[in-house]
């Protein structure tokens, strides 16, 4: 694998004072930016020279010290370790401006760019093996998170990374834990924090005003991603209403109902408990839905295992929605081609491998975010390892990005790469030991709590009883 890095950034930084922790890296350049700061590509100086994505968190907007989002991301990533979850390699503090730098293993690709490449350049869908492998690994990582009481809450293609380096080529990494939460306590709606996340992957119970997040909201997002891998376009591409706190998202619900049909209380008994349901009833009388049918949109046979799995992910009732653990056992993953560890290259390739372009790198930007000279061409901000929450507004998503003309497609090293298939049987999940100080929930409690009814409060969480009795 060729080293595409440039050393120009080093010369441009020679006049600035480097923090001491930066000495261990060679900075390549900026690869992205988002709500909370910039993301850079760097390489470790010591062998093996690994590519590292460094995500910078500026001091929080309120000037109240370290960004709470950074703290939460660090807090969670320090607790978990799994092959299909992005790895937090290091944390650095820059005392000069009180900013935090999170160093991650760099991932060359993400599903957003892969889908876009197929849509705009390749002209045909991803092959069956790749779709199945990407989906299996995503579910494998998600099952690990849910087993540790972590909800991601912002799953979308740009947050699903795929590794490009030789050792982990084709391995999926779930990224961006700035909005993730441990859900042993009631979680407030994201709108309470003023956080904006892409609405296309939001579960219907949230759109209808449920105040409680469960792991089922992640599974709805996975269903949307699965469909997008098949069709190369977002499944429910609604426009978001941003007028007030927790507004009624009529357009997004419209997009869902037109494909899946209108939900009924027969199929979704707790529907009546959702705050916006009454609004929707009024709206329903003005509209008549002729459901297109999910199978027609994704072009799958209704009797195929793939369609069965997808429809169970997009089940309206979160209590009935398939879990990550159940999905991993689904018949879809037991059929040929079996999913593999390298999502790009099957052990018995039946189709031509697609070579995906690498991320554009702005080599003129230093760690302070300043550009030393004008770049010869405009470089689009790509999706990056450790992706920023809110990095994609609606506008940037719908507009196609210009590709850098000189960017060459990288030759994939397929020789000697040994992919192996996961056996389709019980005990499939790799066992990862937890950190010693983390208390383990009882297995039966995990089962009980994982599929909590969103209409109910978390009765297991006791409020403080701090005052003394007299």
């Amino acid at each position: 694998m060729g080293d595409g890095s440039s050393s120009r950034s080093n010369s441009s930084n020679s006049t600035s004072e480097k923090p001491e922790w930066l000495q261990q890296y060679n900075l390549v350049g900026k690869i992205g930016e988002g709500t909370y700061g910039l993301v850079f590509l760097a390489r470790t100086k010591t062998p093996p020279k690994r590519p590292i994505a460094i995500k910078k968190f500026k001091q929080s907007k309120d000037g109240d010290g370290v960004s709470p989002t950074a703290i939460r991301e660090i807090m969670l990533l320090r607790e978990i370790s799994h092959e299909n979850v992005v790895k937090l390699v290091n944390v650095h503090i820059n005392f000069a401006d009180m900013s935090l730098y999170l160093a991650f293993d760099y991932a060359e690709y993400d599903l957003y760019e892969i889908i876009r490449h197929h849509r705009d350049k390749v002209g045909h869908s991803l092959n069956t093996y790749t779709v199945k492998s990407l989906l299996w690994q995503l579910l494998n990582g998600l099952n690990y998170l849910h087993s540790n009481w972590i909800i991601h809450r912002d799953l979308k293609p740009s947050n699903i990374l795929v590794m490009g380096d030789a050792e982990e080529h084709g391995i999926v990494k779930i990224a961006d834990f700035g909005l993730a939460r441990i859900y042993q306590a009631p979680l407030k709606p994201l709108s309470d924090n003023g956080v904006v996340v892409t609405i296309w992957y939001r579960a219907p119970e949230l759109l209808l005003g449920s105040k409680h997040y469960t792991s089922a909201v992640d599974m709805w997002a996975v269903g949307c991603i699965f469909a997008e891998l098949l069709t190369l376009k977002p499944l429910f591409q609604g426009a978001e209403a941003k007028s007030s706190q927790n507004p009624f998202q009529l357009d997004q619900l419209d997009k869902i109902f037109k494909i899946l049909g209108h939900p009924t209380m027969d199929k979704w008994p707790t529907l009546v408990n959702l705050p916006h349901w009454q609004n929707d009833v009024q709206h329903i009388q003005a509209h008549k839905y002729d459901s297109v049918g999910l199978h027609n949109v994704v072009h799958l046979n209704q009797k195929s295992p793939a369609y069965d799995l997808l429809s169970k992910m997009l089940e309206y009732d979160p209590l009935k929605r398939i879990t990550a653990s159940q999905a991993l056992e689904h018949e879809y993953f037991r059929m040929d081609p079996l999913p593999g560890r390298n999502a790009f290259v099957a052990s018995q390739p039946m189709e031509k491998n697609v070579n995906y372009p690498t991320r554009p790198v702005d080599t003129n930007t230093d760690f302070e975010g300043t550009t030393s000279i004008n770049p010869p061409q405009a470089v689009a901000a790509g999706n990056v390892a450790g992706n920023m929450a809110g990095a994609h507004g609606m506008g940037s998503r719908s507009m196609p990005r210009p590709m850098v003309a000189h960017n060459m497609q990288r030759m994939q090293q397929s020789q000697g790469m040994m992919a192996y298939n996961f056996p389709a049987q019980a005990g499939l999940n790799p066992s990862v030991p937890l950190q010693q100080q983390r208390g383990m929930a009882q297995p039966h409690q995990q089962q009980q709590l994982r599929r909590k009814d969103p209409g109910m409060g978390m009765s297991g969480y006791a409020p403080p009883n701090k005052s003394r009795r007299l």
Partner: protein
Amino acid sequence: MDEALNENASGSESDASSVASNLHDDEIIPWFFSREEIERNSPSRRDGIDLKTETRLRDSYCTFLEILGERLKVPQVTIATAIFFCHRFFLRQSHAKNDRQTIATVCMLLAGKVEETPVTLEDVIIASYERIHKKDLAGAQRKEVYDQQKELVLIGEELVLSTLNFDLCISHPYKPLVEAIKKYMVEDAKTQLAQFAWNFVNDCLRTTLCLQYQPHHIAAGAILLAAELPTVDLQSYREVLCQEFDITPCQLEDIRGQILELYERIPTSQESKVESSGGVAVVHQPISRDMASTEKCPSSDIEGGSSQVNLSQSDDHSVHDGSRSEGIGEVNSESEAQKNLQDHSVGNIMVEKSDDVGVVQLKKDLQLHQEEVESKQEKDKKSFEKDITKIDLMDEKDLTESEVEDEINKTMQTGRQIFMKVEDPDDNMTVEHSEIRNANNSGVDDELVADTCLINDSDL
């Protein structure tokens, strides 16, 4: 492949070696130690702060954080997390070089972020200042204090994050406590036992138990201790708790004993010894059961004796007067040590280890900041002298008041146990409602209050 947190790892390794006998190569700091290790190897010990003084300092910042939390109207879990961060901080850094109130202020700011009950930097600084100086601040004064303290607290935040090695994910005993009671306890004992155990969990935040045991083990110890008061079948409780919480009988006894020890900090007097014969009669059955069921734990005899002394004290009002005067005497006798401590810690944060790269940088920043402060103070020496005197007096008062408050809390807790013991069911209902009211007053938001109602109505 070395994937350790390079910046923190070197500090972690050298710091860990001073606290634990084992040296860990990876990036994980071992956050659980034995009590002996904690008491013997504390960084404060090397700076001449004895165990008794450190215990008092721990009480002081715990009280400080509880009052700060009440002022800021954050829930109990946030206060518990802030206290936990403070305990871990002083597991690795010395009291002699870090002002406990500044560190506690930073820990509250940090806990607010971690527990998603955010408090603004300004509110934390003002509440802290008002608590330390015992006066409320008006508009112009607020801004002045905020501007003065802001940089110090923000630098402190970086220091605390580094010292904690960004290990910020905290669990507390509350959840396993409630789940176990719902699942195992008989209906008529639930309410009484749950409230006792909950109070024990709150109180033992002041101990180092959370640095020794996992949250669900502490919950087991609190339940066992609570179960003793109504004089229920202790043996069956022990067996259930050991099985459910995966804890050994010795560990369970140790936790129970350390919670009890919290209430025994009231010094014993000769009068209480005279009353001890009555105490034996009162608690004869539990003691004999302890001895019979825990022969493998030699310390159980001590625990039995402790229970006896504790109960006998609560029956003698004169003991409290004696305790108060003796407490004040102790504070006076510690004045030299306190003065020495004050010299080291006035408005300054210094780090314990100089070989941590990040900490070195932080130290430089602090020195610069300190120089700025000194240059300002040189311009007005009279004001400077007044400030020093003021700080000295306030600090001593703070400790004294802390002692008094601790005593009051312990007395209240002891009295509550006796009071609850003789309560009839109707009174229980009344007290339940007052608890809910107290929960509201402590700043719990609506969702949590609703959860309270759910729990009380259906489970407790």
